[in-house]
């Protein structure tokens, strides 16, 4: 295992905000086309990171000095804020060093006008020699901590951490060390990295020339898909934590991306919503169902060609039976019984009779 590089914090010093710059390698900026563009960063901070709540807090209570920014100089000797980019954005917007995009101008002006504290023009910072020294300590805060990143940012961060600190370790140790670093479990780390490997593979293949833009991809759908063993097997993965993917089935990954993210002219994806991943997991177990899905583009129809509906019906009937038993057990101790109860009982009886008759009829027909 590579030795941990314990950061040696310097003393807190106050640095003018105009000398502080956003970290273009911050994992949360991964989605941006140009992370060095201030406009993109501010838009991301306001649209995706909710920097407004920090602006409100700093405007009302002032900047909390117990939370210094963690900074390092880049190769050009410029200060980069490795930890605290949201706070930096909030402060620069409050003190008007930066202006918001037009669509956010109204609320930002309201927040500025309502501030009771003078917006700071310098912030408490602790300087480290190298960005890398701070990197591994971000995980607690943004993966299991108070300001969670989105799952793609988390995965990107874990990849940075792995490459910087644990690249020489075997995979299982990598996962364990990364999990320790962020206060989580190896399986969770592995799932994020496997989903990122799938994402990166597809990205390198230009999303298989499917009509998919990077913005169409909801990374959490990939991590959720890795909760389903049938999908894992169908993709050629050994498990949900197979981030090297030696036996990946590229054709099936392409199909998965097509079903999950490619939109037709009406804006529909075949998957629809993440809750339909369970149906997709059933479909990929049946070559007939896959064929139906490819021909019709309708997941619900393809699902009928799996044994999912039979299992689902069985489960719902068992649940209904359990509830009826609960009703029966409550009857001796419940008084008074009302007309409403009698009506409900009649209705239950009729529904149940209809179900029995329907099943009998269909079985006779078949």
């Amino acid at each position, binding site marked *: 295992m590579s030795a941990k590089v314990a950061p040696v914090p310097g003393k807190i010093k106050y640095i003018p905000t105009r000398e502080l710059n956003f970290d273009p390698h911050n994992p949360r900026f991964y989605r941006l086309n140009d992370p060095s563009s201030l406009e993109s960063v501010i838009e991301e901070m306001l*649209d*995706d990171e909710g920097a407004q709540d920090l602006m409100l807090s700093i405007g009302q209570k002032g900047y909390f000095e117990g939370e210094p920014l963690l900074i390092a100089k880049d190769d050009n000797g410029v200060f980069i804020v490795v930890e605290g980019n949201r706070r930096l954005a909030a402060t620069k917007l409050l003190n008007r060093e930066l202006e918001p995009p037009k669509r956010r101008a109204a609320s930002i002006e*309201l927040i500025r006008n309502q501030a009771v504290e003078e917006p700071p023009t310098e912030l408490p910072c602790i300087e480290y020699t190298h960005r890398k020294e701070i990197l591994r300590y971000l995980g607690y805060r943004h993966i299991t901590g108070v300001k969670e990143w989105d799952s793609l940012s988390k995965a990107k961060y874990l990849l940075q951490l792995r490459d910087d600190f644990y690249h020489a370790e075997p995979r299982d140790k990598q996962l364990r060390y990364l999990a320790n670093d962020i206060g989580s479990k190896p399986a969770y780390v592995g799932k994020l990295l496997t989903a990122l490997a799938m994402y990166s593979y597809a990205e390198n293949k230009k999303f298989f020339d499917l009509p998919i833009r990077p913005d169409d991809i909801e990374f959490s759908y990939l991590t959720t898909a890795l909760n389903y063993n049938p999908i894992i097997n169908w993709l050629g993965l050994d498990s949900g934590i197979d981030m090297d993917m030696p036996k990946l089935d590229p054709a099936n990954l392409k199909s998965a991306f097509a079903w999950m993210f490619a939109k037709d002219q009406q804006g529909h994806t075949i998957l629809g919503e993440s809750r339909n991943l369970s149906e997709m997991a059933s479909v990929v177990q049946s070559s007939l169902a896959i064929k139906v899905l490819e021909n019709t583009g309708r997941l619900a129809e393809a699902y009928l060609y799996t044994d999912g509906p039979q299992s689902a019906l069985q489960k719902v009937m068992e649940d209904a039976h359990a509830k009826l038993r609960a009703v029966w057990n409550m009857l001796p101790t419940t008084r008074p019984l009302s007309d409403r109860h009698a009506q409900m009982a009649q209705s239950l009886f009729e529904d149940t009779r209809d179900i029995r008759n329907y099943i009998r009829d269909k079985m006779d027909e078949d």
Partner: protein
Amino acid sequence: MLEKLDTTPGGTDAFFWSDFAELKAITHADKCFSRGDLDQLARLNKTKESSFKPEERWRSLINFCGIRIHDFKKHYPFRVSEDEDTLELSFDGSPGQRLYLGMLIAASMRHLPNTRKGSIAREFEETCFSVFSKLVPEGSEVRATWASGGPEAPYIGHLYQKMIAVARDVRGNPDINPEDFKENNTGDGGIDLIAWHPMADERQGIPISFAQCGCSREDWTFKQAEASPFFHSNHFRVMHNWATYYFMPIDLREFDGRWAYKSKIGQAIIVDRLRLLRLTEQYSLYDKLPAFEFVDETMAMAEY
């Protein structure tokens, strides 16, 4: 005007979550709602029963808004940003977009103060009246059952009296007694709109339609049947049962355009947000719609 806007919808239905995002957008100072705003709400709700996964919810609702852009076309008063991280109000003042916003707000009763629910529901019912009038055979007589509704709403008094009057109008044989109804029941008996075609004579056996209007997100599953023969055939008998309609401002659709909760749709013909808007357009009914002043009130909100 609207309240409890930090209370997110229960469940995972995209059509409810998209409504919620649209409401947040029209009431926000910036007239938009972003992925980060939803993330913030997820943090607020993290320890509550109403917790949700913000990334999956966002993708679901923003994709559904994309479907609405396609289906409602120029009447959809929102746009989705290029990076799909923001829903923006793009209201152009057209009557179609105004109707859309009116129905969106009417479908959001949980966010309305009690003092406003009745008047907003009434404006929705008046909208339904205009559309309903076009769905029944040409030459039909169309009536509403709500109180203080003028000549189009002649049924007044105790529910018994109303039912007798309705039975007479649709040429049915009433089979009810005053004591069948509670003493102070002046309600509508679950029927908001009534239409019949006189068929150029006075004999029984005429085309009849009943409709119920409802804004509630939860109650429609049973309210849809309130105007049906199942509920009223014991009150008066007619030679041919009537068609039953249920009007709702909800956009009751799945991602692929099918009915959401189709298994819960019973005897009623459901007229939901998309049908209402398309039918209003088809029959050029905009000048018959109420003013929807509450739409302006809502857009004047500037939350942040």
